[in-house]
């Protein structure tokens, strides 16, 4: 909201303040934030009045003229000017060298087509007095010379722009701000003296209220003999300075009143009110109402309308009707000053996309106690601007408003000090509250405080505390550290805290694997998901764009997008390695069939959040090194990341194996990911019989389709499942003994069918070689011309030891024989000669 320093100073003595900046600081310190201070003279500092002595044609340019101007003293100044509308003798606005005009133009001495110009004669456009203008500004003949233009034109006000919080509807006017400033400066504010009209008589236009509590009061007044015409200059300027546009004297009076007192009102052409009746009722469904802005609103029945004997004549609290507006021919004016339900006004304004200044004020609540004054003040303004005479006034008031406004707050005066943690004597509290127009009834121990009718936001003792704190200054509040009255929650007893610790641990492990954590938006486009055979069951009703319409069912589409974007950025011939990980929820709505998302109760939405760990890997294995040494990441690099994660977290009972054929994952989003993977170069992470996730190579078909530049290795695991199986956050990693006695090793060269996987060989060795065989490792494999088709040569090393003693050669031999026998029997392996 914009506030005029000059206007404000008519309502409250600002003499105690050094200037607009001090006012801004004061308001901000009281919670009314001032965003900007704008002197109207900004940009006009070096613009002064001057008179053209002589105008002649520019010797080099037909469209330019050369003027000799005087500023009343000193030598005449030569100015080159492109406008045509001036003549010798005209008073004009001269921008002198050094001027920095409101439109951003900087004025310097210059040569224009060979002729020196010592400044510029300004147009209204350049001075930002008008959007466009034709020719330069010609000032009135009586303007003094050499005077700052701002003074000549009365642009000597300062406009403050306030960013008001939603609770302070009472400050949406100059009077509202004046009250605040007066309370802060301990002075009396003064509003215009008005003789109150008599509203106890029957209204000359009958007033009805048929909307219950939604329209509790309606004050009206009829003025006859009004002459509609342009507003006087001061009024036009005041409205324009505050961001409003002049229409005619009656409409301007209503707008000025709103800026003055904060109460929206409306003036009707009384001759267009049919049936000599006006009232407030709920709109009818489908009812049409022509509005002031020339469009017709179709109402749905939830709005409040103003009606006359025949039809709706206004959208209550939002905008007047086009069928009853004041026009040039109007002589009889009926004034409406009413109170409407904030919620009904707000909904109507949103529904009809007209958040007018009136609606903004009504939805925040107007002062229900001020209607007689406001109506009288409006009548005074209109009769002073347009003539005419008040012929009658009246009011309709619902029972709810016949009671005196009564939000009585009971509070012990000591509460303020103990609640705020600052020194507040009861005298101080009393003077602050009274300064804010609260009335106080003192009881033996308690006070009963009644806030003024305009402070709808004060309803509790905490609200009163805020008034006191902001009046005395938040800087007066002490700084204390609260005491713990109970022990903090222990991680070991809280699954939620334990899970958080594990999540951070997982991030650390992945970081140590040389991965970069990323964060993607939780939403993406449906079309992007469909590229991955995925669909979102959780979509937004009002997304910012299609790019943000669906919550992600998997983290994979995001990581793939990151990868493609990285490849598409320009890094020269070498794309950086992709090493991304993300731990975030994937979303799925669990409604059956046709069901759509809705709140199930106060706490549940039916949308599941399934936490995932996802990894994308591609490119060079090392950050440094020569190209031939680096190598490109492959399956075993990704497997290393997975194994580091699983062992680092101490996840129990997991197994990594190739994708089992013909098996589908019960979670459709996990299954969709499985189908994105190369069937032979991917693995599943098994937990018991369940699959916790998959990792492997992006399917070559998909890779081609997405124009991937390199093989992309992807992983997605259910973090919910893994976290369950991880070593609990508070459990220490157990120490593992090793043998002090030297191990014995036996190397075997086996010939096995290609079908036999490495883990079968090693597991069998450990099983058959029990208890001496403690480790088994594949250290080489070979397929090719030296071995028969369909076979693999595998080199295995088995390690034997006992923790408590040295082994005899014969013991190892016996164990080795058992192992070989088992390999032969169960895997069809043969020892290679």
């Amino acid at each position, binding site marked *: 909201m914009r506030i005029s320093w000059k206007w404000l100073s008519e309502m409250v003595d600002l003499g105690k303040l050094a200037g607009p900046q001090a006012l801004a600081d004061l308001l901000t310190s009281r919670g009314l934030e001032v965003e900007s201070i704008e002197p109207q003279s900004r940009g006009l500092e070096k613009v002064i009045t001057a008179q053209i002595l002589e105008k002649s044609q520019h010797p080099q340019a037909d469209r330019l003229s050369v003027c000799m101007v005087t500023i009343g003293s000193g030598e005449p100044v030569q100015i080159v000017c492109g406008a045509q509308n001036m003549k010798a003798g005209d008073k004009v606005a001269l921008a002198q060298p050094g001027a920095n005009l409101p439109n951003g133009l900087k004025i310097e001495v210059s040569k224009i087509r060979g002729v020196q110009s010592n400044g510029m004669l300004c147009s209204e456009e350049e001075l930002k007095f008008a959007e466009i203008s034709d020719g330069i500004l010609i000032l009135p003949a009586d303007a003094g010379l050499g005077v700052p233009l701002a003074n000549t034109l009365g642009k000597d006000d300062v406009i403050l722009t306030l960013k008001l919080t939603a609770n302070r509807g009472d400050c949406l006017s100059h009077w509202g701000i004046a009250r605040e400033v007066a309370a802060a400066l301990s002075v009396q504010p003064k509003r215009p003296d008005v003789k109150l009209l008599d509203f106890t008589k029957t209204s000359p236009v009958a007033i009805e209220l048929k909307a219950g509590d939604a329209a509790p009061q309606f004050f009206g007044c009829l003025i006859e003999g009004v002459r509609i015409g342009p507003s006087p200059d001061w009024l036009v300027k005041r409205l324009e300075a505050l961001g409003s546009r002049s229409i005619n004297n009656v409409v301007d009076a209503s707008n000025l009143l709103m800026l003055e007192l904060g109460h929206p009102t409306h003036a009707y052409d009384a001759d267009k009110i049919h049936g000599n009746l006006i009232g407030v009722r709920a709109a009818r469904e489908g009812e049409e109402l022509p509005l002031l802005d020339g469009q017709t609103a179709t109402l749905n029945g939830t709005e409040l309308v103003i009606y006359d004997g025949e039809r709706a004549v206004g959208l209550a609290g939002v905008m007047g009707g086009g069928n009853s507006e004041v026009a040039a021919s109007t002589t009889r004016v009926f004034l409406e000053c009413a109170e409407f339900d904030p*919620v009904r006004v707000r909904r109507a304004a949103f529904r009809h996309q007209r958040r007018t200044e009136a609606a903004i004020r009504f939805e925040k609540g107007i002062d229900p106690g001020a209607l007689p004054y406001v109506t009288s003040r409006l009548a005074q303004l209109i009769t002073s601007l347009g003539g005419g005479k008040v012929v009658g006034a009246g009011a309709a008031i619902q029972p709810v408003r016949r009671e005196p406004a009564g939000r009585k707050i009971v509070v012990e005066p000591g509460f303020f000090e103990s609640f705020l943690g600052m020194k507040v004597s009861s005298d101080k509290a009393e003077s602050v509250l009274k300064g804010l127009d609260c009335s106080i009834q003192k009881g033996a121990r308690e006070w009963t405080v009644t806030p003024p009718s305009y402070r709808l936001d004060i309803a509790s003792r905490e609200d009163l505390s805020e008034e006191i704190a902001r009046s005395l200054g938040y800087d007066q509040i002490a700084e204390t550290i609260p005491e713990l009255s109970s022990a*903090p929650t222990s991680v070991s007893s809280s699954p939620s805290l334990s899970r958080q610790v594990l999540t951070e641990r997982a991030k650390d492990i992945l970081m140590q694997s040389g991965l970069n954590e990323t*964060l993607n938006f939780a939403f993406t486009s449906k079309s992007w998901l469909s590229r991955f055979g995925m669909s979102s069951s959780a979509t937004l009703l009002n997304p910012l764009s299609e790019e943000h319409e669906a919550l992600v069912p998997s983290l994979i589409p995001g990581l793939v997008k990151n990868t493609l974007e990285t490849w598409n950025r320009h890094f020269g011939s070498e794309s950086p390695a992709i090493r991304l990980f993300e731990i975030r929820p994937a979303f799925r709505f669990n409604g059956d069939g046709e069901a759509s998302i809705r709140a199930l109760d106060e706490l549940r*939405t039916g949308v599941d959040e399934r936490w995932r760990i996802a990894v994308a890997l591609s490119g060079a294995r090392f950050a440094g090194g020569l190209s031939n040494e680096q190598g490109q990441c492959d399956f075993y690099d990704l497997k290393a990341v997975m194994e580091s994660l699983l062992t680092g977290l101490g996840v129990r009972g997991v197994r990594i194996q190739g994708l089992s054929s013909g098996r589908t994952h019960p979670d459709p989003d996990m299954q969709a990911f499985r189908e994105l993977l190369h069937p032979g170069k991917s693995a599943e992470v098994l937990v018991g019989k369940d699959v916790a996730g998959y990792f492997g190579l992006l399917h070559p078909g998909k890779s081609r389709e997405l124009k991937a530049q390199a093989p992309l290795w992807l992983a997605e695991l259910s973090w919910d499942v893994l976290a369950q199986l991880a070593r609990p956050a508070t459990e220490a990693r157990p120490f593992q003994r090793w043998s002090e006695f030297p191990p014995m090793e036996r190397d075997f060269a086996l010939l096995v069918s290609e079908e036999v996987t490495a883990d079968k060989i090693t597991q069998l060795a450990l099983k058959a070689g029990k208890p001496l065989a403690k480790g088994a490792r594949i250290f080489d494999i070979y397929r090719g011309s030296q071995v028969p088709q369909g076979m693999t040569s595998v080199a295995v090393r088995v390690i034997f030891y006992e923790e408590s003693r040295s082994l005899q050669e014969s013991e190892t031999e016996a164990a080795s024989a058992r192992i070989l026998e088992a390999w032969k029997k169960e895997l069809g392996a043969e020892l290679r000669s």
Partner: protein
Amino acid sequence: MVEKLNAIGAGALKDVSAASTLEAIEQIRISVLGKKGALSEVLKTLGSVSAQERPVIGAAANEWKRKIEAALDERKSVLEKAQLDEQLKSERIDVSLPSRLPHRGSLHPVTQTFRRINQIFSRLGFDTATGPEVETEFLNFEAANIPADHPARDMQDTFFMGPGVVLRTHTTAVQMRAMRSQKWPVRILSPGAVYRSDSDATHSPMFHQVEGLWVDRDVKMSDLKGTLLFFAREMFGPEARIRLRPSYFPFVEPGAEVDVSCFLCRAKPSDSCRVCKGTGWLEILGAGMVHPRLFETAGYGDDYRKLGLSGFAFGMGVERIAMLLHGIPDLRLMFQSDVRFLKQF
């Protein structure tokens, strides 16, 4: 015979000192000391020598053997050293070639900032609590004293998922859940992703918040101030100061905007300060005393008054703090997954 030994010995020592290769040394060792070497050959004839002479000759032979061996060893080590020196002259690697540097992993600045904030508040006794990102409108708004059709709804542009279901606009709902389940005392910090339908250089439709809530008997506004001052000093340095300005958030009363003194120019404003843009202060937090209506919607009934319960709450944007600390110029960088960005932290 002794003369013969002396001649062999002297000749051998001369040969040793003249030897220039390790092979020559080995050759001398064999030709003199070997089984068929000159010295051995002489000693084989020892049987023909008289018993008196025998010890004398034996001692002389051993003496020569020792001398020759010592000479051989010495010469050998000299030659070996020379050979190594020669070898080292040709053995050079270019230490300036690139190392086989592993990839350096990184945590997102949001994660790192979360961790610092969590650590600071956990020292004061706050527990971390989390909750769903898809939230009921009731918990996100109504329970936080922001009823439908209230002007305060304008403060948070909301993504809706369905009737009564929103993407949470703040993590206040987590606090509401905690108050419902824990009753009191409540001391929680709720970090997490939040959503508002706004997107430009300073607004992101998804961003992260940390909110704090402390409910207990006789909690004062000075406790809020002290807590936030502790936070500011831990986060921004021991000289940090805070400034509270009255403001309005529907879930607190009194409410405040909290500024922290600029950690770069230390509140000695200069127009050129890249962090505070010359104001000396950074708007970082919103805070206040828990609005009594929250106790009511949390199911405390009227008990909170009888018990003397009160509380404070605060909230801050994590990206904003991360941007200030790291000097990140544009919020959007946080969510673009550009490796040049991610790798820096």
